[in-house]
């Protein structure tokens, strides 16, 4: 057998195997998460190896949402995420437009600043912000957290939007200008409607960052239970012995589900937006 046909046969069998392994390794933990969340803790302790519960229960979800306060945590997370998305878009749309279209002093340096912010270690920022919020008595307030999330997402969103704005033909804008549109109304009435996919992707990216973030939520909110986010709530309750693991697994599902839904509703948009720069290097 020639080397070529040997390799072809090898890869014909190897490829499905690799795909299967990847699928199991990524899907199984989440399947396990859901399965644990709908069974009784007694059953788990008696028979930890079984995957399919003998009886399904939703008490875990009732418990985690009401008794453990996850409804409040969900509300906090939702407020933070929605506000972050709104302000991120509000700030990055004009910024991205300026970088894409207008020649101004410092335009080249702006890229460098964004790259630096994107790569900047959060743990260094955490210290002064922790001190500042302690001094201002802002610990426990959601506003500070939202500010941090905006600052962390804006560099990336400006970059994503800029790439897209550059594809909007300049002639359309010029036509609008001749029709008497000012710069702002050109953005509002011409550029934004043409950029809906990019706006969606950007908003979803901001939503994911704000919903999933942990370090700053831990630093700013830990002392006030009623302002915990879902992430923080889960991490804080995970250590206690009184709350059964199955109930916390229900909490994990509650934390994961919104982001998975949002992501898959928009997967193509989001991955194209994020990897668009990859081709450039």
């Amino acid at each position, binding site marked *: 057998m020639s080397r070529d046909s040997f390799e072809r046969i090898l890869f014909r069998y190897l490829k499905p195997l690799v795909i299967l392994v990847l699928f199991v390794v990524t899907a199984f933990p*989440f399947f396990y998460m859901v399965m644990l969340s709908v069974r009784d803790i007694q059953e788990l*302790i008696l028979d930890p190896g079984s995957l399919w519960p003998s009886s399904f229960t939703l008490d875990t979800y009732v418990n985690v949402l009401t008794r453990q306060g996850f409804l409040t945590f969900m509300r906090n997370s939702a407020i933070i995420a929605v506000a972050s998305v709104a302000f991120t878009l509000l700030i990055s749309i004009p910024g991205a437009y300026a970088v894409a279209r*207008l020649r*101004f002093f410092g335009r080249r340096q702006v890229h460098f600043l964004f790259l630096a912010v994107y790569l900047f*270690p959060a743990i*260094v920022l955490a210290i002064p912000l922790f001190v500042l919020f302690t001094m201002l008595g802002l610990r426990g307030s959601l506003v500070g957290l939202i500010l941090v999330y905006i600052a962390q997402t804006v560099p990336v969103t400006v970059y994503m939007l800029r790439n897209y704005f550059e594809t909007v033909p300049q002639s359309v804008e010029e036509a609008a200008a001749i029709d008497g549109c000012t710069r702002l109304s050109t953005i509002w009435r011409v550029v934004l409607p043409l950029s809906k996919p990019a706006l969606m992707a950007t908003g979803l990216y901001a939503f994911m960052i704000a919903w999933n973030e942990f370090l700053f939520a831990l630093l700013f909110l830990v002392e006030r239970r009623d302002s915990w986010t879902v992430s923080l709530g889960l991490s804080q309750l995970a250590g206690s012995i009184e709350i059964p693991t199955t109930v916390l697994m229900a909490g994990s599902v509650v934390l994961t589900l919104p982001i998975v839904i949002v992501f898959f509703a928009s997967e193509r948009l989001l991955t194209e937006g994020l990897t668009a720069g*990859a*081709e450039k*290097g």
Partner: protein
Amino acid sequence: MSTGRTLRQQEGRAGLVLISPTLIITLVVVVVPLLWAIMLAFQDARLINIRRVGIFGNYTLENFTYVISEPGFWSSLVNTLVYTVAGTALSIVIGLVAALALRDKFAGRTLVRASILIPYVAPVVAVAFLWETMLNPQYGIVNTWLREPIAFLTQARGEFLGIQVPVALLTVIAFEAWRYFPFAFLFILARLQALPAELDEAAVVDGATPTQRFRYVIMPQLWRIIALLSVLRFVFTFTKFDDVYLLTGGGAGTEVVSVRVYNFLTARDDIGASAAQAIVLAVVLVVFLILYLRFFSGGEREQE
């Protein structure tokens, strides 16, 4: 608008106005805090006396000497390096394999792709807790498959095939690879799909075997994206806090510098030492980046 300004000047002004919200928020929340962190690192700042620490405070190098001589610092730096290099390399290699395997269409590709991306998009708290539960020695599913239960996350050393291995450190590295290979997968797949098909076809015609095509046709076109991914993943992992903190709390030989920074800040209330440690971490990172750019500067120059 006819105040004598040229169109070019107007455009410049409009540009600055439109970009200013972005600049202000990054200045206020990123740049100023960074400068402040550097100041704090050179002062004796604790949470109790923080109001007395000002711009004109007593600058000393005490925090740095203290931090470096404190037991555990060097081992945490070594841990950070091992964790980062192994995590980065593994996540990129697995991402590359995944991208190559999922390159062509097959039945169920959408489902598999979706499944592969979940570890990356799911909240870190949820997946860390999920791993903790799966690896639990009492009721975790993984241990019921093993002959002898292993305390993956709380055991510093163990024996595997007669060799001493750092169990917990390997586990957090595996977690890192599992959680971030989708990131590499996405970027490599995007690059693969943008490659012109003709080269590959020509190689087939010339009788190149699949491994030869990979070695001589595909890989040369992927090096740049892999180099970029290496930098990105290295930077992100080197200063990563959540993953290790949530999995082990820094115990069992997994303490990385960022977790130490957090502990100095919250458990010891020693802001100065915490900041000094964070600055050391950032400086080490910058040194690695500069070394990297020196070695690979040829590829970077053609970008602009």
